[in-house]
């Protein structure tokens, strides 16, 4: 039996950011200052497949490359290496018109409800610009379409002449969602989409995401550092550490028993309402700088099980049980 073709797939995708030397540094090097170009491997050979209708959570600590991966998926960043496939076809190889139509099917919701809306445009233009530019609605249907989109996310269409600053954070988040929905996407990348909101408002927006998923049969890549939110929403969870995926597992399995030592540490540190006055037992060590990641397994300086092999050799991500992938040498022993 063939496995179903995933809706969206990344194959061995890498993204590097290079901080080039400026003239002064080059001049300095000429005299032997020995400055090097700084390279950040923000995303390092990541493969990922997402099936239609799925909600995949992406978690990891700050700077581990979650946003970069999300931007690659949404087509905002171009990967340095690797392929991005849509229903089994490489997007880069599609004819231009089709590639653009595909890009529109993949939309992104951003973290900052302030910075992600153009402060000088009215709500009607923010939401309605793209569908008009791409000829998705006729001008005489535009008003109806706009009203319908705004109502769908719980915004009063009476507010369409307003500017973003006239809305609260939660309403702004809704405008950002409406903007993405207006081009009829099938896949949404949500990058910390509720992180900037108050707890009481967060619940409203999360509920909206779930309702939209049911109404429009959307597929999500849900990026968040809040494991509680990810646990609540996701079918599967991807955990990243310093640019690499360390574990992929169905949400239930992961929260019941994480496999990778980093995943274990992460889950142990999640504050929960149920744990009172606990004794904190911190993971030792700092998150290393992505400019200068540790050799071998990136997690070895902090890992309680690290061996000599971990320092030399990077573990590969492999399937340790059906649907469960992990990148740790400990799994080889069994």
């Amino acid at each position, binding site marked *: 039996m063939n496995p179903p073709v995933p809706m969206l797939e990344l194959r061995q995708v890498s993204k590097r950011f290079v901080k080039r030397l400026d003239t002064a540094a080059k001049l300095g090097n000429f005299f032997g200052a020995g400055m090097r170009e700084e390279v950040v491997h923000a995303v390092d050979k990541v493969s990922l497949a997402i099936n239609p209708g799925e909600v995949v959570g992406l978690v990891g600590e700050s700077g581990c490359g979650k946003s970069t991966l999300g*931007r690659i998926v*949404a*087509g*905002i960043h171009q990967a340095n290496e690797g392929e991005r496939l849509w229903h089994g076809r490489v997007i880069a190889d599609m004819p231009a018109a089709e590639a*653009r139509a595909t*890009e*529109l099917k993949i*939309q*992104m919701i*951003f*973290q*900052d409800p302030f*910075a*992600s*809306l*153009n*402060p*000088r*445009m009215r709500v009607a233009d923010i939401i309605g*610009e*793209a569908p008009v*530019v*791409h000829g998705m609605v006729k001008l005489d249907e535009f008003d109806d379409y706009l009203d319908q989109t705004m*109502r769908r996310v*719980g*915004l*009063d269409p009476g*507010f369409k002449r307003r*500017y973003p*600053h*006239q*809305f*609260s954070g*939660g*309403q702004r988040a*809704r405008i*950002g969602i409406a*903007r*993405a929905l207006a*081009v009829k996407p099938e896949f949404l990348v949500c990058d910390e989409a509720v992180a900037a909101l108050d707890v009481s*408002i967060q619940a*409203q927006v999360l509920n909206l995401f779930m*309702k939209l998923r049911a109404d429009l049969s959307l597929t999500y890549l849900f990026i968040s550092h809040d494991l509680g939110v990810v646990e609540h929403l996701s079918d599967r969870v991807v955990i990243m550490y310093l640019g690499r995926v360390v574990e992929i597992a169905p949400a239930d399995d992961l929260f019941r028993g994480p496999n990778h030592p980093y995943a274990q540490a992460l889950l142990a540190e999640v504050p929960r309402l149920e744990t009172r006055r606990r004794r904190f037992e911190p993971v030792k060590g700092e998150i290393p700088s992505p400019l200068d990641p540790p050799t071998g397994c990136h997690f070895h300086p902090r890992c309680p099980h690290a061996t000599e092999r971990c320092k030399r050799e990077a573990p590969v991500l492999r399937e340790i049980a059906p649907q469960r992938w992990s990148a740790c040498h400990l799994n080889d022993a069994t």
Partner: protein
Amino acid sequence: MTAPDTALEPALAAKPQTPFQRFLADFFDSKIATAGLVVLAIILFVAIFAPWISPQNPYDLSKLDIMDGRLEPGTKSMDGKPFLLGTDDQGRDMLSAIFYGLRTSLAVGVTASFCAMILGMTMGLTAAYFGGLVETIIMRIVDIQLSFPSILIALILLAVLGQGVDKIIIALIAVQWAYYARTTRGTALVERRKEYIEAAQCLALGDRRVVFRHLFPNCLPPIIVVNTVLIANAIALEATLSFLGLGLPITEPSLGLLIANGFTYLLSGKYWISFFPGVALLFTIVSINLVGDQLRDVLNPRLQK
């Protein structure tokens, strides 16, 4: 259909202030800036309506009487009209000459700054959006130009081009576009990294649309601020050039030329020929700068209350 939920009440129920109202309220918070704006408004009024409010047409040589030359402020003329601020060596009424001089100075300054703004903004946006070699070339030219004193560049250009209103405007544009280019690029680089630009890219809106509909309008506030200051600079620079004799012809005197003209008489006690145009120039530049400073503070989101 679900009913829209309760998150629909107006966000600013208390005092609905449009951004413009808030801007005005913030602007008039400072007394000195308000005073600057009032002075500037008077100056603009005088400059625009000079032909109708001046007691005399200082350019009409047939109306001038050399016998009225260098009269003290307040002296009456042959036909009984008082010269409130005295006359110059040709018998011109100083008050009228200042009104017309303001008109010339402001026209030259505003035109030059405006053209420089268009040129500089285009260059700055191009550099910021395309990056790479284009950016390097544009910004190197800017750097080189900004490292020379502007008066020097203007002097050399005028020496090559010759005299005249158009020539001096060209010289001023050449001096000033670099400031606009640098400001625009700086702001555009910051704005370009904001998420709304990424959102526009994600919606496949096309480069030109992203630059002109999304990036450009958000770069305007700092450019407006630079603009006010640079208009003042253009006026001052034009006055300097005229004072040095490289500016406008004496038949259409600007403030700088009026000052230069009276300079020779300063030591013989006939102060008014230089002094009053100097005061007018000072008021113009100070008031523009006051307004510009306040604009900068008000438009700076970090200082917003």
